[in-house]
């Protein structure tokens, strides 16, 4: 069961990545990204990070992809034709990304990991909630402020664009 889910998720991610890599159509790529992100969310579930999976689907698959889609629509002349993106540096890109992949795989394969950590808490969401106000209080404060900044920034910049 687990294995078949794993294989399914892997296929999901791989197909998403594959489309992104080889398509020229940005809209397709955005949807493929959505596919990938959902697959990754599945992986999160398998990694017993349920909240993360939820956040992933809500924020990423929901938010980011829609943002990107809007972006595509707003920043490209949409007169019925496809929104295509050319590529350059293909050879170098391939070379670099393959060497990155190879290098990382080599590093991963040569590493050995401590897999005998303590048991995870039952109620991860509660645990995370508490930690936001205790251990990660500063981080929580900070991300809140960052969100404000990003919000103001994005809004202000977008307003400028709209004012044109």
């Amino acid at each position, binding site marked *: 069961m687990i294995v078949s889910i*794993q294989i399914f998720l892997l296929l999901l*991610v791989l197909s998403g*990545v594959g489309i*992104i*890599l080889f398509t020229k159509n*940005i809209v397709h*790529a*955005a949807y493929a*990204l959505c596919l*990938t*992100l959902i697959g*990754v969310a599945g*992986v*999160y579930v398998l*990694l017993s*990070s349920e909240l993360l999976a939820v956040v*992933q689907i809500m*924020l*990423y698959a929901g938010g*980011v992809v829609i*943002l*990107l889609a809007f*972006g*595509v629509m707003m*920043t*490209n002349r949409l007169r019925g034709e496809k929104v295509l*993106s*050319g*590529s*350059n*540096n*293909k050879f170098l890109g*391939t070379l*670099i*990304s*393959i060497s*990155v*992949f190879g290098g990382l*795989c080599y590093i*991963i394969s040569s590493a050995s*990991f401590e*897999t*005998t*950590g*303590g*048991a*995870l808490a039952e109620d*991860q969401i509660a*645990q*995370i909630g508490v930690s*936001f106000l205790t251990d990660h209080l500063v981080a929580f404060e900070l*991300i809140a402020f960052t*969100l404000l900044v*990003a*919000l103001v*920034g*994005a809004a*202000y910049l*977008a307003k400028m*664009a709209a004012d044109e």
Partner: protein
Amino acid sequence: MSETMLTYTLYLAALLFSSGTYVVITKKNSIFVLIGVELMLNAGNVVLAAFSQFDPSINGQIMAIFAVVLTVCEVSIALAILLNIYRKSGVSNLDELNEIGN
């Protein structure tokens, strides 16, 4: 969760990361590049989540959650800037953005 599973997850992360690298380097359209960046960020999140399962205080997962939030912020800012650029010059491909120079 076995070590093998962990390793495979990490391979997946490596795949995502290097695919992101490829997209970032090769694709001309700036939104495409953003997509690549998302892939790379996701790779990082996968790594965090993968190790988080061995950590009772699940710091990795928390960090990944924060990272996701930050990513959204980043994308929104990026899109705001792209919008401005598009409005000003009608350009959305990065290689056409070459006004600045020496």
